């Protein structure tokens, strides 16, 4: 039986691409008096549980990234796979 896999995929804007959500959160934090904030970036973390083994897990994750989760023009990503 294949064990369960947990895949964490973090998708962020590439360096050099504007992150407006980050900017507006920075603005909101400043309005709240957090003056020491220099920059804010917001990423999305997809935590996906898969019924498969580790090797296949990476492959599937890469394929999900390519087919759906990332637009390479603006995004970069990290994948972490862990057995659970």
């Amino acid at each position: 039986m294949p064990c369960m896999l947990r895949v964490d995929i973090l998708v962020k804007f590439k360096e050099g691409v504007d992150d407006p959500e980050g900017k507006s959160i920075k603005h909101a934090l400043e309005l709240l008096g957090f003056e020491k904030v220099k920059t804010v970036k917001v990423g999305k973390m997809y935590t996906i549980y898969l019924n498969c083994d580790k090797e296949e897990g990476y492959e599937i994750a890469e394929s999900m990234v390519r087919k759906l989760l990332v637009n390479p023009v603006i995004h970069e990503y990290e994948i972490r796979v862990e057995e659970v």
Partner: protein
Amino acid sequence: MWGESMKAAILQMEGTNCEEETYIALMESGFTPEYVHLNNLRKGKAKLDDYELIFIPGGFSAGDYVRAGAIFAARLKATVWKDLVKFVEEGKFIIGVCNGFQVLIELGLLPATDGISEAPEAALMPNDSGHFECRWVYLKSQSSKIFTDVPEMITLPVAHAEGKFYASESVIEKIEAQKQVIFRYTSPYGSTEYPWNPNGSVNDIAAIMNPYGNVIGMMPHPERAYFPYQHPDWTRNKRDTGDGYYIFRALAEALR
């Protein structure tokens, strides 16, 4: 090709929500529109081949949860990709408005500077303001193959959270060199600063087409401005038609 044969498919999935006004505008401009649900395409109950025009309407397909248009695009790719490519290659017309534009970018059908691209070549990013905005914008038409009769400056509404056109410098250069830009954000007062450019699009780009001019994507909604009284300032400025009318008329003429 007038009347019966000008069949237009309005693609639908959960979350597309501008289909009804799109239907009305297409019908008024001489098309025979039909709603075509993605599930019916998948099940073979409908065929793209039967249509002259594919219209991908605005909305929030699948909630736009991953990225605007991404799920819609991925599902089209997984089900009817070959038919779509054939459709484009036969020189039939596809237009995507708002969410539909996002879908076409994600599919690589736009900007398609070197032909259909496997991975997206551009992006419609989150607005610079960081949130959804519904407002009317001024648009300057660029001379383009199909939209020759559109007045030089028109107004249409935008309503999106992700409409900032973005691509690498080289892709932008190519788009400009190949004259693929159809509309740019502008204003009667000279400036194109926010809110005139409502989202921060590079080069004020609001609408583009592929190099052949048969795949068209635009963020502003012509279907919400088909009739004069849909404009926000109709109590001040009289018009005979809404400015969106010109876009639909141009499509109809291009297909005729």
